[in-house]
């Protein structure tokens, strides 16, 4: 099946109940070229969808192959890779990142597959984080050592499968975006949770340089490669790098130095209680930091709205608002029956399709 100019695109978004999936669905709904949007998730959506439909599935997406055949989607946007191991066991990481991707690619592959593009939201975690690393990773820079944390392992494995898939399926465009650490006004990660407290961890004697991408740029980048059908492997990160000390200062938090040897031990009780999220990947990041080269995506025509410092700034502003006005109340709860009613009941008056 070739791309048709007039008929709209049919897009399936995985992880539609997560932050990224939800935002991607919302962004796709605003795009008139997209005809159908299907959201697949394991929970319930946290944001209201307009015309998109939500389908609940198990976390390994075993239902996906059937769905792809039934709905004839031409694009799959895979936002469901876990890139922050704070609340995920190694087992979950494997199930979601490796088995989930495996099922997704199996569903998208095959001779009779309607899928023409697969977009994968990955992370710069795949580069690892070690003293031997170069200061800047290009998309083709190899890791300086083998993966050390369960998160790295699962992402490296998932990306390897995506790579094999793109070689085996020349008729399908494969876009893999590796995002740097994300900051913004809404997203909650282990890094942002640490920065939003009065005290945040650091490793004594280390002040690494970090690179950030703002959450809106993340969704814009996903949409950019989807809309313009750009295949390839891309780093996505704001320009510039900031030392951890500067990030902490901008967010109004004081750094608590942990011992350079076994820094996780004094934190262990707090980590176990879930008070301080400190996944193993954060430890090496707070030692050596990570930087990526973003010229490939910029060369493809993408314009960032935020630099690294700008991403930190937007996060700091949202923190100030939250400290002054408190958390904004949750404004939306997903009710399956209500959503189905508005989408499918004959009683609902719908504007005529043009």
């Amino acid at each position, binding site marked *: 099946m070739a791309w048709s100019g007039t008929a709209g695109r049919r897009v399936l978004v995985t992880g539609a109940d997560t932050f990224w999936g939800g935002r991607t669905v919302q962004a796709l709904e605003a795009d008139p070229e997209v005809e159908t949007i299907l959201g697949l998730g394991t929970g319930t959506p946290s944001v209201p969808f307009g015309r998109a439909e939500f389908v609940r599935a198990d976390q390994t997406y075993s239902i996906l192959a059937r769905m792809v055949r039934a709905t004839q989607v031409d694009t799959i946007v895979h936002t469901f890779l876990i890139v922050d191991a704070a609340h995920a066991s190694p087992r979950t990481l494997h199930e979601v990142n490796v088995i989930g991707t495996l099922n997704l690619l199996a569903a998208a592959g095959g001779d009779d597959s309607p899928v023409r593009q697969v977009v994968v939201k990955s992370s710069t975690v795949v580069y690892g984080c070690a*003293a031997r690393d170069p200061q800047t990773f290009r998309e083709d820079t190899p890791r300086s050592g083998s993966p050390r944390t369960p998160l790295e392992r699962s992402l490296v494995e998932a990306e390897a499968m995506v790579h094999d898939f793109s070689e085996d399926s020349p008729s399908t465009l494969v876009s893999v975006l590796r995002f740097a650490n994300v900051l913004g006004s809404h997203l909650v990660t282990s890094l942002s949770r640490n920065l939003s407290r009065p005290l945040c961890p650091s490793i004594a004697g280390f002040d690494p340089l970090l690179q950030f991408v703002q959450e809106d740029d993340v*969704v*814009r980048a996903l949409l950019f490669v989807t809309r313009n059908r750009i295949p390839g492997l891309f780093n996505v990160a704001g320009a510039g790098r900031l030392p951890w000390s500067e990030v902490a200062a901008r967010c109004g938090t004081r750094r608590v130095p942990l011992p350079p040897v076994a820094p996780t031990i004094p934190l262990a009780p707090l980590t176990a209680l879930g008070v301080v999220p400190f996944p193993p990947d954060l430890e090496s990041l707070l030692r050596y930091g990570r930087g990526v080269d973003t010229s490939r995506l910029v060369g493809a025509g993408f314009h960032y709205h935020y630099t690294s410092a700008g991403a930190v700034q937007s996060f700091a502003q949202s923190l100030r608002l939250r400290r002054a006005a408190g958390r904004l109340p949750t404004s939306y709860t997903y009710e399956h029956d209500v959503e189905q009613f508005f989408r499918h009941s004959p009683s609902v008056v719908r504007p005529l399709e043009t």
Partner: protein
Amino acid sequence: MATNGRPSTEVVPLRLQDAATEPLDDRRSSDVDEWGRSERVRALARRLYDPVYTSWFRAEWDGMEKIPTEGGALLVANHGGAIPSDAPVIMHGIEKELGRPVYGMAHYFFRTVPLVGTLWSRAGGVPAHPDNAYRLLHDQRQLALVFPEGTKATAKSYPDRYRLRRFGRGGFVEIAMRAGVPVVPIAVVGNEEAMPVLFRLPTVARVLRLPYFPVTANMLAMGPLGVVVPFPAKFRLKVLDPIVFDVPPDQERYSKNRVMEEAELVRALLQETIFDMLRDRRSVWFG
């Protein structure tokens, strides 16, 4: 799922077509650049180091004008001494005279040492990785300083002073070729007497996970102070003519043969220059 955010009802504004490249807000509160170098820290280091440079080592340069005042260049020098003073002296001298930053490349081991790694980075140190060197030289047209002998030179004992070790695998030549920049050899004399290594303790090094653990003459003469304080040997530095390799830049591979040959030529040239300088040197302390 871990990255589940708080609910948001906003639709992301889609401004995909905007070709307008208004400058983005990039306000910073520190002057740390992407290499971790801070000009403020560097200026402070220069102020503190200047008395050492002028009064302690009384460094004297010959041929400073051969160092390019613009564009990338790879500075290559001989190395020595338990805690080598050649790197700070070369960086200080060039920055003082030419006003150009010099990025000193060293073993990534420094990065793993708390505080030392951070200070080293803020003061213009960069881990010696081929990608880092290429980025500095080619993309940013900076001066990078390398010691191709690496720790083989700083670990050698006093009787081997001024005998240059193997120049690695010639990686520095390959980087200069790839980046299309000249190699500028710098011969340093005086450094080997500033902190001579008498012998090494490999067991201690293994336990402390250090590349080597030297016992220096300074330690015997000054006690604990001698761990960091060098002797006031007279430093003489001679800049040789820049070497431009007649090959196209940005090639996937360069002839290993040619690379090794050029590396050996640079090594021999530096070795010969150092012997010449030693022939003319009357005193270790007064030059």
